[in-house]
């Protein structure tokens, strides 16, 4: 009884926080604060995963999303923004249209969802050892196994890593941009940003 109440309380607490943070993500005019909002949303999602008894996924969520993607975004923002730069506010008509579209989408999904009987089967709940189950499923060659998608995903990540290096690497001197982007994008900083993927960029500053 109490456990259910705590669970519900946490759901609403985290849910409200998540929505608030999501709004920060899309509305805040300082990019880094928005990223922090995103980080909050993702961390909250990890909490949701734990509530949905998917602990491994929660760990992965924090490891990859918070530790990887968000940090990457922070880096990207640091390379391209300064503290006192505020992102421009889009035109009011764009905001109105986008808001209408988002709202209509939400209503449509909710309407569709309401029309479909989505009752949970009795005895819902993921088994305790689902971490092991995930590991086994990912390595399963059988008909319900995921070894092929898993390998493809690993290949995708490798390709993305290499592609990221190639795209973001410093080009030849004659291809240098006309605008170097102010204080934050000077040579040393850019090099720092590359070090995580491209150690070749680490030439000592002359």
């Amino acid at each position, binding site marked *: 009884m109490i456990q259910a109440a705590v669970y519900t309380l946490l759901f609403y607490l985290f849910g409200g926080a998540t929505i608030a943070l999501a709004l920060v993500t899309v509305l805040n005019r300082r990019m880094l604060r928005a990223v922090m909002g995103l980080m909050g949303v993702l961390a909250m999602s990890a909490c949701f995963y734990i509530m949905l008894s998917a602990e491994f996924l929660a760990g992965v969520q924090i490891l990859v999303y918070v530790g990887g993607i968000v940090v990457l975004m922070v880096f990207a923002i640091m390379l391209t923004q300064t503290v006192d730069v505020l992102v421009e506010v889009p035109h009011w008509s*764009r905001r109105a249209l*986008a808001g209408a*579209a*988002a709202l*209509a*989408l939400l209503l*449509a*999904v909710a*309407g*569709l969802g309401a029309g479909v009987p989505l009752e949970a089967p009795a005895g819902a709940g993921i088994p305790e050892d689902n971490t092991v189950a995930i590991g086994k499923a990912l390595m399963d060659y059988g008909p319900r196994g995921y070894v092929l998608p898993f390998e493809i995903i690993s290949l995708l990540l490798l390709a993305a890593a290499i592609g990221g290096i190639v795209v973001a690497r410093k080009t030849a001197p004659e291809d240098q941009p006309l605008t170097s982007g102010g204080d934050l994008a000077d040579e040393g900083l850019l090099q720092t940003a590359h070090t995580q993927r491209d150690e070749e960029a680490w030439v000592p500053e002359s």
Partner: protein
Amino acid sequence: MEHGFVIAHAWLIPALPLVSFALVGLFIRPLSARWAGIVATSSIGLAAALAYTLAWEYWTLFPAGQHAESLVPWSMEWLRYKEGLVVNIGVLVDPISIVLMVVVTTVSGLVHLYSIGYMHGETGYGRYFTYLNLFTFSMLGLVVAPNIVQMYVCWELVGVSSFLLIGFYYDRPSAVAASKKAFIVTRFADLGFMVGVLVLGYWGYGLFETVAPALATEPGALPLQPFDFRYLNSPEFLAAFGSIPAFFGLSLLSVAMLLVYTGAAGKSAMFPLHIWLPDAMEGPTPVSALIHAATMVVAGVYLTARLFPAFAASEDALLAVAYIGGFTSLFAAVIALTQDDIKRVLAFSTLSQLGYMMMALGVSQMAESLGYTASMFHLFTHAFFKALLFLGAGAVIHAVHTNDIWQMGGLARKMPITHLTFLVATLAISGIWPFAGFFSKDEILAAALHGHFTVLFYVALFVAGLTAFYMFRIYFVTFWGAHRAHGAEHAHEAPLVMTLPLMILGVLSAVAGFVPFGQYVHMGEHVEHGGIDFAVALPATLAALAGIGLSAFFYATASERAAKAARFFGRAYRVVKQKFYVDELYLFVTKQIIFHLIARPIAWFDRHVVDGGVNLSGWSIRTLGSESSRLQTGQVQTYGLWFAGGSVVLLFLIWAVHV
């Protein structure tokens, strides 16, 4: 059947000029113009030698006066449309093809030889010989064609090479215009030929199954194809085909033959398609001699002769051939009376003589094939003396650098060989015994008389007189009297390479009439024609002598008589001098009626309505595109907005349908 070597290898005769054409055109001409002329000439000479040997072998096989078979010594499959509808390419050897081969190779060889001198130093010397070889090949291919498709293809090749040769001086606007005129007019006529071929081929193929078994082909002979002349000329086919009615009371056969005759008339410059021929004299004079006098223009006559049984099966077509031929001969002769350009006079005389040949074919019958023989005979003799006339004229022009006979005069002493040979040719064309023209013209007149075409007979007789008159007119004006211009004073005899062909042709023109032609060339069984029919020969000779006398009266001495006579005729003279305004009529029809009344409105319609419609659709699409391209802002977010809107609409649709 065992043939002689040359019969078995008759394909060499057209093949030699083809090989020479390729060799000269591709390899020799760029290296040495001189050798181009030599190679081209010797190849034709070789072909001529082969043609003579072929004639000898053939008439050894089928002696004079006996039935002569058509041989196809070489043939191969060329176009296979479907089973039973195959076009072969091959060589047909029969009397008239041999005659044509002999004539073409002889005249062509002599013209080649003459050209070596005449064209000496001209730019495009090698090109000229290349074209000549191509022409000779085309003509020989036409001559030996065993089926109507091969003939049609070579026919067009002849047209192309004549176009190239007439427009040889392509930097001269008049030459370009003449070549275009010749090509367009003959093409226009060939359209009729093509439709005729299609009609013949369509019905020939349609009737093939029923008719072919009745045709007895000897064992081992090539199977007949629907386009073969042997099949098209067979009485079985003609009987089956001739019974199909078409319209206006004409049988389908008549329609087909008239269409084919359109092509023949175009090539042979029958009225009213004659207008290209006088203008075609813009080409080099040897070309005129070769193409527009001796060989190419007789292709129409040859085609008619080749399909003679088919024409004979259709009385209407044959009548049209006869009367158009007769009218053309008269019409051209009258015009020739007034022309001042020596080549033009000769061109109109060519027209006149071609009219004779056509008329001779027209007055002939399957049973009474005297005219057929006469036509071929006249073709044979005319080729020699007309080539001689042109080459002689060429020598004169070469000497005095003008075409106007009134700029010449008194050349008899300056150019004795040319003068003599020209006189021989003039006598021959006038039909004076014992020159070649006498015999062949005599036969034509006899054929007209025996065929009970009385009107045509008298027309032909009158034309014979006119011919003598205008031929001697140019003869007298050119060679007699005083020098009327500076060029004529400094004229001198042509070199040997030019006079040699003249002499050879002069001999041929003199003696060709003694060939017992009727024994070799005849339709069906040989009909013995008892020598010279004095009932015909006497009036003809008298008419010719009258013409010569009149001509001498007017032109032998410098006098005002001709001018007075011209004044006497007044307007009539001017009409004739302007060639009856046929060209102007054509111009009026093409320019005023076709161009202004039909083409311009159509062009306006096309430009404003059709193009306008197309442009309107293009404009509307472009405007729509440019207007709708404003939607394409290039900003992904805007696209995303549309996408989201679309998704929402879709979701609501699903919702509306399912819930």
